[in-house]
């Protein structure tokens, strides 16, 4: 027991549900507190359960982990390697000023200290644009160009590197927030595709989300307990996005009713997603090859190549300018 864990002045610290040692975290949704070791065990169990329940990984499969330098992707990479999965990382430099510089440093340090393989792609160097520039050139929110670029590049890197599966750090809060948004709009097509596993199909690797049973408070705590130095600062381009508002709304529900987020999302997977399975199957029909890059697409030129085309010739746009344009 460290000096800081010791009860002082008669105050009794909360105890781990399993071993009765002083707890480091309270998890109201489990109606329990946990010490560091048993918290890590809980996280491993939740990730293993997600992988097995949804058939995410086959034994011995090499996994490409989408790494941003933030808590979720580094926790995911750490958890997968901890569970014995062969997992390499891919980091995409998005060109979001100091934020991207720092996030890259966190990803590289994590990989270096653990002897893991990290591949890097820089949008500006290799495709002539960055996320702030794409936001201004397309007139759309930065998160749109960011997501599109990352999806395309992760798919391509998996194909080129012979990885059958790409793992992303989407957690329970992410998935519950997306589900909340899709439900508010009754976006049936998006609801049908909101699954923790998207099967491989022509030209696309399988996509898996092993952290869907962990909240982001839990992934951050995993990093703290494991001594992982992740990027705490939030992406400046995500300020004020709808996703954050949905998370805040769900956290207010969670405070009143612990376990509400898990019941909402995991209940959707158990009871609603099966009813939408036909819709999900329809969505994979009718894919062609992009005439420029060969990626699977529903049109002649894929969305990524169209984005590269629209941003061609644009000089770099500073983050502040992209944000100012977005607020107008």
């Amino acid at each position, binding site marked *: 027991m460290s000096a800081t864990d010791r009860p002082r002045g008669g*105050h009794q610290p909360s105890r781990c549900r399993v071993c009765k040692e002083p707890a480091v975290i309270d998890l109201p949704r489990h109606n329990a507190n946990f010490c560091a070791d048993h918290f890590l065990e809980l996280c491993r169990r939740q990730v293993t359960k997600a992988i097995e329940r949804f058939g995410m990984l086959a034994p011995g499969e090499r996994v490409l982990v989408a790494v941003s330098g933030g808590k979720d992707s580094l926790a995911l990479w750490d958890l997968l390697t901890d569970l014995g999965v062969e997992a390499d990382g891919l980091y995409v430099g998005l060109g979001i000023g100091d934020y991207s510089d720092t996030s890259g440093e966190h990803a590289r340090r994590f990989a270096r200290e653990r002897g893991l393989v990290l591949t890097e792609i820089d949008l500006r160097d290799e495709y002539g644009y960055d996320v702030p520039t794409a936001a201004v050139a397309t007139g759309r929110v930065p998160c749109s160009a960011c997501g599109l670029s990352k999806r395309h590049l992760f798919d391509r890197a998996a194909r080129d590197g012979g990885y059958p599966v790409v793992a992303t750090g989407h957690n329970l809060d992410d998935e519950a927030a997306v589900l909340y948004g899709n439900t508010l709009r009754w976006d049936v097509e998006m609801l049908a595709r909101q699954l923790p596993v998207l099967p491989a199909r022509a030209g696309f690797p399988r996509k898996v989300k092993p952290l869907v049973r962990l909240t982001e*408070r839990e992934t951050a705590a995993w990093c703290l307990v494991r001594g992982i130095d992740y990027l*705490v600062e939030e992406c400046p381009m995500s300020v004020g996005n709808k996703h954050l508002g949905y998370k805040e709304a769900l956290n207010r529900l969670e405070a009143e009713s612990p376990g509400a987020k898990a019941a909402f999302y995991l209940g959707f997977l158990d009871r609603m997603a099966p009813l939408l399975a036909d819709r999900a199957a329809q969505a994979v029909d009718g894919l062609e090859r992009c005439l420029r890059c060969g990626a699977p697409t529903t049109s002649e030129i894929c969305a990524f190549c169209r984005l590269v085309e629209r941003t061609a010739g644009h000089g770099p746009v500073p983050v502040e300018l992209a944000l100012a344009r977005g607020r107008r």
Partner: protein
Amino acid sequence: MKVVLRNPVREVDIPGPRPAYLVLADLGLAREAHLVIRNGTLVPSDARLEDDDRVEIRPVISGG
């Protein structure tokens, strides 16, 4: 106690002793969206924070 907050990084003084969940409430911060770190160690929300503690309240919500 000195309490370090993030986004942006800043420091506030809060008198102790005080349980972590009340410090969060004083600052208008949701428990589900934050971790409390006392003298470099993660602590649960009912941990008592003393006047001489160095506390960080770390947000965990990502926008992506």
